[in-house]
């Protein structure tokens, strides 16, 4: 029971921390982001396991985390407001080639991030971008001008 409560508490804590950190945190999957994720994983593991390295404890923890995630997914599908708070909503950062600076600043996305996403689509500059959308996942989707 103790480990299940620990698992739930840590799940909710990480959910809040990453939501506060913003969509763009860890979205780039840079080598440093990867190191940070590995370090967080290691730290969380010790707190979750709490000295009980039995198979039963590990299985219970996995079930707790997967169960919490499934329950939250259901809740998010039923309550759109909850989903918006937990995951955020897409934000249009560029319209018809023009960056919407206040939204970019608030989302902590700079021009270079949008240009990098545009280059991945084979585009050379912002004037070729019709829309750039910051998705809930932190990725930037590019819709080119036709």
């Amino acid at each position, binding site marked *: 029971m103790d480990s299940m409560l620990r698992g739930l*508490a840590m799940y909710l804590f990480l959910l809040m921390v990453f939501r506060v950190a913003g969509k763009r945190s860890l979205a780039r999957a840079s080598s440093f982001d990867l190191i940070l994720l590995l370090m967080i994983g290691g730290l969380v593991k010790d707190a979750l396991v709490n000295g009980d390295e039995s198979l039963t404890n590990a299985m219970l923890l996995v079930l707790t985390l997967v169960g919490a995630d499934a329950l939250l997914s259901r809740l998010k599908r039923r309550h759109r407001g909850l989903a918006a708070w937990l995951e955020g*909503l*897409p*934000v249009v950062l560029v319209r018809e080639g023009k960056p919407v600076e206040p939204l970019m600043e*608030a989302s902590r996305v700079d021009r270079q991030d949008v240009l990098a996403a545009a280059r991945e689509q084979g585009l050379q500059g912002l004037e070729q971008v019709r829309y750039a959308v910051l998705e809930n996942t932190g990725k930037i989707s590019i819709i080119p001008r036709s």
Partner: protein
Amino acid sequence: MTELEVDEDLAHERRAWRAQKLGWGVITLLLTLGAAGLLGEGPANRRTAAAENLSVRALYERTLRHNAQSELLATVRSDAIAGERALLTVGQEWLSSVKVHSVVPEPEAVRAVPGGMQYEFRAAGGDFDATFHFEPSGFGSVPLRLEAAGHPPLLLRQFILP
């Protein structure tokens, strides 16, 4: 040209950004408290306290962390030591909330007395120091009572974080 079909809600997003700023405020506060040692560990967390007639003194951590090692240094003043025997009673409530791994120096005897356990040490002369190495196993505020035999007790509180 069709308009972009996207679930954008800037009013919500602005509320979310305000909440994020608030969240960063909380994170900053926690980091500051942690750096100041108020969430366990660190010099700012160490306290000393003494019984009213100074028969027992304690150097302890005000805030502890669940399952993290800690120490309690209890000093029995020389005039509270009868002969070569220092008798120190530790309250039961505290003992029920921690796992005592070792006591240095090792007591000659440990016996149950009303309200706690009495540790009997051989004292060589002068003030006597005993260090309790322990690990908190409970949560929340825990009363700690230390008492030299026949003297008023030292009462203090420690707080155990999850």
